[in-house]
């Protein structure tokens, strides 16, 4: 029987975990950026009720929110190679599935999932902006695209930012699922270290602390960003809302 908590081993895991941090952050950053773009597109489809697409968007959002992340990761991991292989045969596309790194499937899976949630956040934020803002933009001659880009979306961002922050934090934690298809991010690294040292509790405490630290930093960044994008609201507006 050894010690209750092997402090030297616990401390020794941090350098290795730190090496996996960039992988976690990379998945988070790529998935979040792609999800923002895709989520905005889906939100606009639903707001403007683009014929044909609006039903597809509704089904997509419902499916992505109604199935587990882990299942979606497996669907991407097994489904995308099937699709690529099929296209390869049909069209002679020069794509070799085995050349695609596993992390690419993770990007797809997380974007698929997070974009659905973000589309709802973005839709609600846009719809929270007074119609008069767009009308004012149109009345001076701006196109609705311009009005959206320069007037409505900046205001919607201020509304949605806290929610975006929550989504990023949830995403950071969800990236721990990536090891299920053998992408070695922090959680994967922790499992490897635990197996190597035969001390799992210490390494999981260590990895928990690293996740926590990352999330604290993100919270701070979001709070600072919020100050920035909300500066136009002033004291009066805050009291109103």
């Amino acid at each position, binding site marked *: 029987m050894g010690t209750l908590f092997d402090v030297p081993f616990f401390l020794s895991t941090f350098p290795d975990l730190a090496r996996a941090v960039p992988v976690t952050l990379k998945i988070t950053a790529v998935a979040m950026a792609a999800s923002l773009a895709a989520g905005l597109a889906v939100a606009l489809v639903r707001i403007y009720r683009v014929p044909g697409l609006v039903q597809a968007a509704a089904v997509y959002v419902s499916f992505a929110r109604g199935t587990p992340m882990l299942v979606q990761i497996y669907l991407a991991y097994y489904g995308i190679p099937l699709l690529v292989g099929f296209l390869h045969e049909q069209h002679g596309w020069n794509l070799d599935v085995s050349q695609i790194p596993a992390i690419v499937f993770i990007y797809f899976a997380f974007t698929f999932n997070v974009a659905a949630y973000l589309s709802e956040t973005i839709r609600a934020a846009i719809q929270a902006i*007074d119609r008069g803002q767009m009308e004012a933009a149109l009345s001076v001659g*701006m196109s609705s695209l311009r009005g959206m880009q320069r007037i409505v979306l900046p205001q919607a961002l201020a509304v949605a930012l806290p929610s975006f922050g929550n989504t990023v934090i949830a995403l950071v934690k969800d990236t721990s699922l990536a090891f299920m298809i053998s992408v070695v991010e922090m959680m994967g690294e922790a499992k490897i270290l635990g197996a190597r040292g035969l001390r799992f509790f210490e390494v999981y405490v260590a990895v928990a602390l690293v996740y926590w630290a990352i999330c604290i930093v993100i919270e701070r960044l979001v709070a600072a960003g919020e100050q920035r994008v909300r500066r136009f609201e002033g004291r009066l507006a805050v009291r109103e809302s």
Partner: protein
Amino acid sequence: MIELRNLWKAFHHNQVLKGIDLVVRKGEVVVLLGPSGSGKSTLLRCINYLERADRGTIRIGDLTVDAAAVRRAQIAALRRKTTMVFQNYNLFRNKTALENVMEGLLTVKGLPAREARDRGVLSLEKVGLGDRFHHYPSQLSGGQQQRVGIARAMAMEPEVILFDEPTSSLDPEVVGGVLEVMKGLAREGMTMIVVTHEMGFAREVADQVAFMDAGVVVEQGTPDQVFEQTRQERTRLFLQRVQRNPSQPDAQPPTPPAGAASPGFRAWDPASGTCSCARSPAPADPPAAWP
């Protein structure tokens, strides 16, 4: 010159405009009067194409738009010739006063930033806000916001500025300041169509007054003609009501309940218990505040 011919607009089954004809000469100020729901605001919004008229033509300067067959480019062109001043100001909340005025100059007129800034500064100084360039709307009072709204509209140098009840949301003590700004614009020869309940403004500034009710222009003429030599009973009733109760000019004139009068009767004289004229069908919905 602005010319509206036979403009029709319905929201679902509610026919709001029923063949409006209106001619506004360059430099004229036209005040639209009428009870709430008479279609005044809708008419303004159709001119700015915030609402699409169902049919009729809108001519502004050399541009004629047939509402029934309007093209995207025509809407864009029409909007560049018109700007709107809104009842609720609708300043861009994410932009400072100066940025509000500059926005259209930059994105629509494509002016270089420096020129847009100069023009924005000039416009704001003209409405008496030379010391509020960098305030956000949330930091301005209602009267100040509305003056920014007017500065934003006039900086675009449109052929006409449409005022949709510009002082209705304002505290009484700041209404005068906003009206002064509008009078200044009128003196400079800006063409203006103004929906307002400020009778003093109408008498003093308007070249033409048009009284609207139930989607039609009931009576039109100089302020003298409309206010002093009122020809239509409906106009007379409205003016009486406004003068009796100026705090609530928007209140619906009493209307007989649906079915109580034959279709076509709109204005109802509660004193004598008779309907006074038969120009237009009864409204689709009886007024909510039927006594």
